[in-house]
């Protein structure tokens, strides 16, 4: 029953019980305290009544004393307080009657006392006083006996009144004793109630506290234990639900939370297993690709990260495969190109060798030229010697110079005439040439004409047969003309060149002759100057000689250059061989490349 209550209800119920007990105890104590108060009121009431009786007694004694004093002294001053005391007696008596209204016995006694006191005052005191005064006015008279009797009578009444008052006081004291006993009993019971109530209250509070603590702490302990076990990694742990209060709900929610966490962990484990499987698949493809097998394809797809990784890897492997394919093709192309280069390098090498041979031949020719030049030089040297000889001979011929001069003069004029004739010949030859050109044109046109004539004759059929023969003859004539013209042209060209050479030679010759004539004339005039002039011929030979020598030097330079060229050609051949070697190495490298790339398998 306690378990189905909420914590609030439990707390309210426990503290409510404690509060109820304390309230009961308070009510009991209040009741007892009011009883105790009533009892003490009654005590005071009794003491008041006793006080009134004492007051009455005192006042009466005062009256009696004052009366006796007056009686003895006759002093009027003594009579003064009696009236006041009489009033006090009546006053206290009526108060006592009022106070004892609850007690009929005392009431009856006091009412009996009232006439007695009135009687005492009126019939005893007042007559006594009056009699004394009478006596005092009748100075010297003796005190009558009746007066003494009145005093005794007054004493008796006085005694009766005091006895009655004593009864009243006794009655009141007895009541006081009874009421004090009640009061004590009440006090004792009060102490008992308070002590017992306090103990019960404490015990009950402890019991309720224990029950509440148990009801609150048990589910908390269960929950703490379960949390500790889950924190330690144990699975399937649930906290027991022992109550339906808030802690029960908390435990229920905690159990649901633990269930949810376990399910989440299971889902996570499953997802991580799937991920591992996908990664293993990818890893397999990557491992194959790492050893060169690019045929693997990635089957992992999807929009998640691993799927995109898979498709990215697939794209990468595809690209790599295309790349390797291209590299393989490029390797084959490189090999082919290298083979072609090697072939052309061999051809070049062969060409270079031919060139080298050619240059060797040229070198030989150049050497021959050089040798020829040397021979020529020697000849020129001979000529120089001859010139020297001529110089000496000139000296010998000194005597003949005059005659020679004449001859030379004749020669000059003859040369001039030859020159003029040669010029005329050249001009004629030019004329012949122009005529020949005309003849050639005519022959050509004749040729075309004959062809067209033959065509027309053919078109004319049988009628044109005779004409055809004529056309053939014309053509033959034209051809012969052409051939003859060509021959004449050739001859004319030769003649022209010969004439030109002759003209030049004659020009030179006539120049020489003219100069010689001048020299001879000078020699004729003065022998020494003739000698000098003759000697001037020698330096000219020297010039020629120098020219020949420089030619020889030039020839040897050419020979040297040719040798250098030969060396260069040889170097070219060597370079070509090196190129060939390099190309072979390129071929090997291309083969290596191909074999390297061949380790990648891309098909499939």
């Amino acid at each position, binding site marked *: 029953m306690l378990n189905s209550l909420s914590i609030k209800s439990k707390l309210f119920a426990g503290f409510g019980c404690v509060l109820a007990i304390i309230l009961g105890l308070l009510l009991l104590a209040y009741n007892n305290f009011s009883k105790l108060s009533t009892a003490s009121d009654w005590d005071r009431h009794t003491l008041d009544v006793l006080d009134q009786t004492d007051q009455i007694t005192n006042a009466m004694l005062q009256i009696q004393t004052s009366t006796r004093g007056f009686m003895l002294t006759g002093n009027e001053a003594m009579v003064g307080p009696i009236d006041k005391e009489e009033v006090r007696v009546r006053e206290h008596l009526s108060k006592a009657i009022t106070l004892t209204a609850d007690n009929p016995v005392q009431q009856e006694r006091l009412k009996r006392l009232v006439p007695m006191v009135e009687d005492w005052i009126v019939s005893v005191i007042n007559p006594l006083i009056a009699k004394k005064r009478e006596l005092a006015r009748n100075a010297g008279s003796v005190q009558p006996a009746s007066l003494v009797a009145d005093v005794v009578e007054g004493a008796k009444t006085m005694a009766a009144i005091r006895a009655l008052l004593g009864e009243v006081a006794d009655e009141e004291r007895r009541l006081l004793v009874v009421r004090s006993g009640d009061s004590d009993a009440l006090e004792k019971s009060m102490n008992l109630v308070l002590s017992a109530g306090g103990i019960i209250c404490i015990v009950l509070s402890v019991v309720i506290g224990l029950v509440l603590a148990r009801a609150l702490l048990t589910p908390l302990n269960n929950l703490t234990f379960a949390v500790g076990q889950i924190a330690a990694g144990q699975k399937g742990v649930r906290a027991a639900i022992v109550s339906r209060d808030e802690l029960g709900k908390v435990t229920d929610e905690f159990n649901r939370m633990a269930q949810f966490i376990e399910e989440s962990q299971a889902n996570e484990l499953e997802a991580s297993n799937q991920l591992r499987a996908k990664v293993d698949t990818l890893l397999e493809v990557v491992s194959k690709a790492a050893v060169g097998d690019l045929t693997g394809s990635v089957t992992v797809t999807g929009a998640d990260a691993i799927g995109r990784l898979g498709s990215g890897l697939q794209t990468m492997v595809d690209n790599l495969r295309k790349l390797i394919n291209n590299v393989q093709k490029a390797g084959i192309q490189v090999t082919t190109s290298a083979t072609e280069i090697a072939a052309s390098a061999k051809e070049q090498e062969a060409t270079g060798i031919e060139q080298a041979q050619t240059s060797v031949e040229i070198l030989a020719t150049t050497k021959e030229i050089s040798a020829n030049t040397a021979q020529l030089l020697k000849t020129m040297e001979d000529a120089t010697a001859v010139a020297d000889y001529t110089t000496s001979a000139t000296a010998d011929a000194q005597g003949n110079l005059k005659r020679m001069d004449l001859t030379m003069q004749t020669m000059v004029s003859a040369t001039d005439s030859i020159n003029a004739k040669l010029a005329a010949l050249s001009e004629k030859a030019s004329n012949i040439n122009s005529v020949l050109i005309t003849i050639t044109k005519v022959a050509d046109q004749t*040729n*075309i004409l*004959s*062809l067209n004539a*033959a*065509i027309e004759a*053919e078109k004319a059929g049988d009628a044109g047969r005779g004409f055809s023969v004529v*056309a053939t003859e014309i*053509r033959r004539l034209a*051809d012969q003309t052409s051939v003859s013209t060509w021959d004449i042209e050739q001859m004319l060209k030769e003649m022209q060149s010969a004439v030109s050479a002759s003209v030049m030679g004659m020009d030179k010759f006539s120049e020489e002759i003219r100069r010689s004539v001048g020299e001879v004339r000078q020699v004729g005039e003065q022998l020494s100057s003739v000698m000098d002039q003759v000697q001037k011929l020698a330096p000219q030979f020297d010039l020629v000689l120098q020219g020949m020598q420089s030619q020889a030097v030039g020839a040897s330079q050419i020979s040297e250059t040719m040798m250098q060229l030969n060396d260069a050609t040889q170097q070219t051949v060597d370079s070509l061989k090196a190129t060939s070697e390099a190309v072979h190495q390129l071929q090997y490298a291309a083969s290596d490349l191909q074999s390297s790339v061949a380790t990648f398998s891309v098909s499939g």
Partner: protein
Amino acid sequence: MKVLVFTIGPDRYGLPLRAIARVLPVVELKQLPLAPDYVAGLMDLHGEPVPVIDLSRLAGVTPEQVWFDTRIILVDYPAGDGGTRPLGLQAEHVAGIDSIDPEALRESGVAGAPFLGQVAGSAHGMLQLVDVDALLPPDVRALLFQPREAA
């Protein structure tokens, strides 16, 4: 039959005389840009433009130079529209007229250029006949002989 003998490269070829209108000396030709390379150009024949074909180039042989016996052979070429048009054929070494015994003509048996026909042996070596009508492919014929505008 009589043929006009000329050479293409080192070989001798014959053009039947019946097909020939005239033989002309080589003249200055007006070039025809964007025409096939064997179209040598346009010649002025008495004020009339006549296209000229270089036979050597047509046969795929580039002539070295214009020789003294290089000629333009004028033929009447069937222009496709029923009529004929004058067409110049520039030929090298036009040697002259030669007679060929029709009995000696043989089929060459080898499919070369479409305009080459029968062959005949002679003292100067073999000679192959040239068929004028088959000289030009149809597209070039259409190119060279645009239909005359209606007057």
